[in-house]
């Protein structure tokens, strides 16, 4: 390598390191403040660390917030949307990948164009529909419209993986007399399980992190708050809560499940997106 190349490599490392610091700093503060005693939050503001860490903020959150209820709502909401979307996307992606049929391109376009409709545009009609079905402030009410909203993305991503799948394996299975359903469930799905799992985790994390929609549909009753709504109510409730230590503690508790999930599945998630999403 030339001298120029070596210096530019060093420069690249420095820039990337600074960028990484900028991204990570708020997270360090989040974690640090959650362990600070209340009277230290505004003394020595620039340091997220304290020499006398306390669990008092966490205790306060657990004492005053029905976090188990919120956790359960977030879980059922995210699991419902994830399961539903995977079950819907899998056969659709399968059909779009291996079949030729009339209106295929039109239907595929319909699926993909649905991604261009901002969720906010459908808030009111979806809300009215749920009100008619008496599903406002219930977890099923949270789940149903979310099934449709980003479904196109799942279909798109799975199709990207399916089309690059070896066709001769499929043909061999077909000659063996397997039905198309068997090919989907016994050949295609298992062979793409890492992609499906990564998509599932992605949907799960995305749903878990939804805020506006659960606020609109589930924000009317404490029993239907998700964690994100709960932590927000904790922040904005003028009659209680509202000190930074416990706000940060609540936000750490809210983020923990998705961060752990990400750490556990990191390789798979990163690989799926690097292989699937960018093929076009």
């Amino acid at each position: 390598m030339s001298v120029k190349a070596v210096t530019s490599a060093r420069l690249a490392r420095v820039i990337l390191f600074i960028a990484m610091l900028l991204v990570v700093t708020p997270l360090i503060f989040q974690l640090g403040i959650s362990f600070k005693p209340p009277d230290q939050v505004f003394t020595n503001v620039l340091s997220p660390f304290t020499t006398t860490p306390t669990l008092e903020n966490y205790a306060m959150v657990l004492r005053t917030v029905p976090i188990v209820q919120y956790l359960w709502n977030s879980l059922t909401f995210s699991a419902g949307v994830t399961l539903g979307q995977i079950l819907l996307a899998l056969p659709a992606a399968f059909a779009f990948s291996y079949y030729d049929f009339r209106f295929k391109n039109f239907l595929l376009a319909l699926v993909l164009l649905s991604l261009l409709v901002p969720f906010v545009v459908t808030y009111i009609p979806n809300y009215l529909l749920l009100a008619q079905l008496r599903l406002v402030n219930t977890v099923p009410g949270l789940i149903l419209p979310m099934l449709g909203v980003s479904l196109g993305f799942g279909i798109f991503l799975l199709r990207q993986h399916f089309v690059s799948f070896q066709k001769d394996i499929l043909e061999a299975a077909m000659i063996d007399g397997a039905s198309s359903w068997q090919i989907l469930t016994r050949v295609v799905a298992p062979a793409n399980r890492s992609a499906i799992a990564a998509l599932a985790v992605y949907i799960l994390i995305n749903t878990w992190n939804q805020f506006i929609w659960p606020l609109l549909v589930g924000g009317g009753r404490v029993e239907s708050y998700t964690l994100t709504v709960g932590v927000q109510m904790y922040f904005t409730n003028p009659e209680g809560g509202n000190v930074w230590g416990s706000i940060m503690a609540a936000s750490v508790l809210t983020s923990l499940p998705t961060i752990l999930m990400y750490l556990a599945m990191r390789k798979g998630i990163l690989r799926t997106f690097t292989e699937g999403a960018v093929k076009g």
Partner: protein
Amino acid sequence: MSAAHSREGTRRLSLRLGKLVPYLYIAPALIVILLFVYWPLARTFQLSFYQGNLINPFRSYVGLGNYTEMIGSSLFGDLILQSLLYTVLALIGSVLVPVSLAFLTLALTEREIDFYQSLLFVPTVIAFNVVVLIWAFFFLPTTGGLFNTILGYFGQQPRAWMKDPLLALPGIALIANWKVMGFHFLLAIAGLRAIPREYLEAAYVDGASGWPLIRRVVLPLFAPTGLFILIITLIGALDAVFTPIRVMTEGGPNNATNNLMYAIYSEGFRFFRPGQASALSIILIILFGGLIYWQYRLFDRNVTYER
């Protein structure tokens, strides 16, 4: 019915089914999309000609009244302008920055890339309103807020960041781009991976003299990824600032952080005017569709897809 006859029947059925099979596979997904995306979209269109409230949204037919009210509002120009401003800032923060950073990783080892990729991705997995709460601490208007403390070291007066008509919008955009950047960085790295290593190394080893190679060979190969990132940024720019606005400014101060998408939410769920919200929705969809189509046409001429 004879056995042979019935067997013949099943065979014919499965043949007929055979043609139906792909549709059966697609039907559930399609129904859900029609029911929760396209049908609501049609309802929004219908609602935009009425005024009412959320209990009785069709109280009175007003024709194009909602459209003229919204477009005629003194705020409409700012809504458009600020929507564009957010989009431009997203093009910088969520396209230019992550793509540049991804190109910088060409100089790095696999392990380093893995390290940066993993850390920069973390904001993606944290709930948006949680992200905003963290940043709210940085933007506190008191002397003890983090940014104000830093200003204090330079002898500056504290600022009410999110109540300042000039600072609030960039502040909101900063939060949104911070959140989205890591995901786009990941996509950009993926795009680079698809380019044969030897081109990259050749471009890289030649240092500054390698620039023509980057421009002529690497960039075109990167274009499909670039387009993908560009399009999801354009689609997502207003969506990405939605939660920060909702939590921190409600479109204020004095409309300074508002945009088309948040205005829809405000009309619908803060002022309970579904008709006006729907009219804004249709306006947004039209502008949006136009923007995406224009982008697509622009790039379709220059980019060959790998299918």
